């Protein structure tokens, strides 16, 4: 099978990679680009663990073919923090409130929740609790019971608003 050459922006950087046309964007991110933050929890669009932002919209990377990323702007959890990315320099307020608010246990759902919450706060800086639930309805968590996730998103919204 001939591999397709794909050019896109990932976490703010121009990127190109090769992938089989039938490869999911999730596999391409993980296997070709080494971005393993997005997880495969189901592969069928039901859990949201693979969520990334594609041109700002929450997308299940398991349901998108890699070539569909051509020319798009992608954001994965690795691109949430400012600075060089990985580990720690200047976590995004959502990352900070998730870790301070004990909104994660095993952490497999966390990357998906974070990018979905970012998409929400980007276009709705002051969401109600039910808007938060609505925006995160595509993300499953088996560990936390969700309440601390909701509180952490609320807290991040407050911080982001006051930073403006």
């Amino acid at each position, binding site marked *: 099978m001939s591999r397709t050459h794909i050019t896109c922006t990932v976490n703010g950087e121009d990127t190109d990679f090769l992938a089989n046309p039938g490869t999911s964007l999730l596999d391409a991110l*993980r*296997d070709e680009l080494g*971005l*393993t*933050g*997005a*997880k*495969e*929890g*189901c*592969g*069928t*669009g*039901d*859990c949201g*663990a693979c969520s990334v932002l594609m041109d700002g919209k929450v997308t299940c990377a398991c349901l998108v073919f890699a070539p569909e990323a051509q020319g798009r702007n992608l954001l*994965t*959890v*690795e691109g*949430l*923090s400012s600075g060089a*990315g*990985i*580990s*720690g320099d200047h*976590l995004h307020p959502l*990352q*900070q409130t*998730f*870790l*301070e608010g*004990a909104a*994660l*246990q*095993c*952490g*497999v*759902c*966390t*990357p998906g929740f*974070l990018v979905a919450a970012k998409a929400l706060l980007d276009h709705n800086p002051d969401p109600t609790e039910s808007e938060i*639930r*609505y925006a*995160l*309805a595509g*993300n*499953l*968590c*088996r*560990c*936390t*019971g*969700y*309440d*601390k*996730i*909701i509180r952490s998103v609320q807290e991040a919204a407050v911080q982001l608003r006051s930073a403006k």
Partner: protein
Amino acid sequence: MSVGQSPLRHDAAAKTDGSIEYAGDTVPAGALQAVVVFSGRAHARMLLMSTDSALAVPGVVDIITAADAPVNEYGLTMRDQPALVGVDHTGAAAVDAAVSRWEADQIAVVIAETRAAATAGAAAIEVEWEDLPLVDNIDAALAPKAPLVHPENGLDTNAYHHLRIRKGDPDFGFALAYAVIDEVYEVPHQEHAYLQPEAGTAYIDNEGRVTIEIGGQWTSEDREQVAHVLGLPEDRVRIIYKAIGGAFGGKEDMSIQIALGLAAMRLAERGEHRPIHCRWSREESIVGHHKRHRGRIRIRLGATHDGTITALEADVDLDAGAYNYTSNKVLGNAHVSVAGAYRIPHARIDSRAIYTTTVPGGAFRGFGGPQGHFAIESAVNRLAAELGIDPVEMRLRNALVDGDDGITQTVMPEGVSMREVITACSLQAELDEALPDPEPFSPIASLPSATTSLRRGRGFAAGFKNIGFSFGFPERCEAEIVLNGNPNDETPTSAELFHGGAEVGQGAHLAMRQMASDATGVSLDDVHGHFSDTATSGDPGSASASRLTFMAGNSILGAAEEAEKAWREGDRPARGFFRYTPPPTEALDPETGTGAPNFCYGYMAQCIEVTVDVDTGHIRVDRVTSTHDVGKAINPALVRGQIEGAVVQAHGYAISEDLQLADGFITNPRFSSYLIPGIGDIPLQVDSQILEFADPLGPFGARGVAEMPFITYTPALTAAVHDATGLWFNTFPLTPSRVLGGLQAAEE
């Protein structure tokens, strides 16, 4: 002091920026990919298997079959399962290795350059089967002349494990009763649905050990089982846990460990040294690993006018599925918990684990407790209603107290707090206040909210759960602490903690570091953990049975004391190793059930408020009060996390999770049709009430909490639904269609 505080988890930052590595993330460059092939037969004898065409598939490197297993049997507590089903296996095995007893019996491991090639190879394996009769539920298994699932065990029944309790004179007890209820309760399967499906990588490490990087619950036990099949001494096998994406009991048994171990060993023998990676899809995970046991419990419970329980009879039948896994142990817990935390003078209990040709039952948060408590707590609620007694008062009247004998006719371990917990929960839940009118709600955003069809109700349940392994198991936990500093330092500057205990997401490693910090006087930031690698850490026992805080804490206290001694003697670094063993427990007497099964319990009570829409059958849980005696909250934030998470998992069990089986096959192995709660489905309010009645044996007084909030949820919920609708449900999940069906049947 760090214990009692809620410092941040040391792994949290890496979990928020995507950098932490789970077993599914760590695929070394150049790794081969493995696919585990399931039999796809519920019950059948293999006649022939050919891998010739599969080996010819481009990219396929090798195929591991039963012939590659030096010892073709395994099992956590009974070795009743072949590692790989096959006709020409040469290894020793007590079990007939040519028979598939459930759809996910493993028959081969295809190793290839890519996943796609391995999958194509798996499809090209040719197998001929002779179908054997299905035994796909407990009725079929118990029918006269039922085909035997495990004839090799020499029994003439599929009910292979039978526990009894004979206490006092039940006939006499029932004669004293003013009211008796006699009900049959059906409990369903539950899927763990940890968000990370099974994944792992195997290779030979530089000391020549077969090494498996994976996520599990008990490093040493994984190693023992892998080594047994591989025919290797245990020190030739190494298990390393990466970050673990949830477990809940579902990673206590083997999934891909043995397949990976065999593959790494055999390929290395054949000169192929590349690491081998395997990961299961969600569907493979749901089909391929055990479930919470489904079962049937008949219970008869009698009480006098004032609610004093006089007698109990119970028959607990659990569907063990194709292999034992931990069914014999789960059964033991269900057997003891079906009597509740009550004084019961006269009792007969018979509990059986039953083989069928379906998915095995095994460990899952609560470990038999949810099944037992659903029956006894439902029965108590029903009896209270029949007697016109308040359910809380009924429980207080019968609750065990310190010094009482439990149902197994031995004195309860000290620290019984059942009454205190019941009282605290009833106060917190404001049971003396009437429920407010229902708030309109609609389960579906596009529908208008219902108003006139809403009924409110409230239900209560209470119970207990053992902490640690039971029934005479040689319970233990090992820790090592190394104190660093200069020869003339008064106190150590840093400490290393070596511990095998599994961090399955609950925050155990932080709690362990907190306890090590307090035990050594070294500040938390300077306590460095080295966890879950059999090459460096001792036997931790399992991250299960709500035992890890209790057991690891005691092992850490002991190791710290040993290290202190060495420190005072001038050792730099000063090492201390400790193996903690709690007071021994006993297997129950086979005829009477007498014995001391446990050394510690945690006590809990829950009150649930619901609104039921009687037009649609939808249930909304408005408020949950979850009260727990945890002895001591080592880290209160983590304790609350356990409570909130367990409540929502129990909510799924009670309301939406409905595993479907047809002819022995799971027909909904997907999150689109097996519905775990999402963020819009959860209780509106969960009040976690943490009580701290120190356990006399617990480290810093701690008991355990992981399972307790799960256990009483379902009976409290069904009581609330009864309060709202007047209907008792003896089975669940209470899906809208079941509730509506019940309401319609009651009308007719």
